[in-house]
């Protein structure tokens, strides 16, 4: 029994895909600028933008009930916290 889902149009998907390609191009270009420490941050920022587009549109997260969004956020928060806590050791040893 599937609920009558939200139907996302082809046009929107193609626009999202185009954005993803553009962002990919940007991230390669930024990497070539050799910005030192900032490159990593920039690369991660762009990757997260791309990931958000995939999650929000391709995976329909935008159209799902709030509980899905909360759970996804909680998962990302858990991973973030784990990484940060580990680095309280790695950075300060």
């Amino acid at each position, binding site marked *: 029994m*599937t609920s009558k889902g939200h139907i996302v149009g*082809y046009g929107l998907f193609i626009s999202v895909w185009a954005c993803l390609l553009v962002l*990919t191009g940007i*991230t390669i270009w930024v990497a070539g600028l050799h910005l030192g420490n900032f490159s990593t941050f920039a690369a991660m920022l762009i990757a997260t933008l791309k990931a958000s587009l*995939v999650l929000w549109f391709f995976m329909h997260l935008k159209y799902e009930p709030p509980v899905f969004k909360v759970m*996804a956020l909680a998962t990302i928060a858990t991973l973030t916290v784990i990484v940060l806590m580990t680095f309280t050791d*790695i950075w300060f040893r």
Partner: protein
Amino acid sequence: MGAKFGMWLFLFTEVLLFGGMFLLYSVFRSRFPLDFHKGAEELNLTLGTVNTVVLLTSSLSMAVAITAMQKGAARLSLCMQGTTVVLAGAFLVNKYFEWTAKISHGIYPGSEHMANLPHGEILFYSLYYVMTGLHGLHVIIGLIVIVFMMRFTLNGAVNQGDYIKLENSGLYWHLVDLVWIYLFPLFYLIT
């Protein structure tokens, strides 16, 4: 709805699974920045970029496949699922070339050549193999699953009234794309 809920929960486990590897990566990257930089230069940026575009496009085709099924356009859906499978195959072929090139240069975990590299480079390549290997395994699984979805589309088990299997396969496939979105800059762009 319950099945979709369960699928998202499963995806969360995958996020943590790969997350653990990203944790390992970030620790060693912070300790050996120069070695990682050198390792990244050895990787083929062109193949990496092509693979990125391939996966992003396969996510598009999968998303379109689902909308098509929702609208009752089963033929279009089947076509798009097939496209996804072909693109997945292309990704794997590229990966095969990348790996064999490295292996023929003696760069693989446990090799004599590796043993003589600086520590950071050993770890870089080990992480490269393990993370892209684990990812590749997930691509293979996704490919097989979507082939099954094509079969179900043909025999009507997946149809306009009940396409939850297709949706869930799509979610899995997008996750595979998501992981690569992070793998790509971390291995190919840190030059």
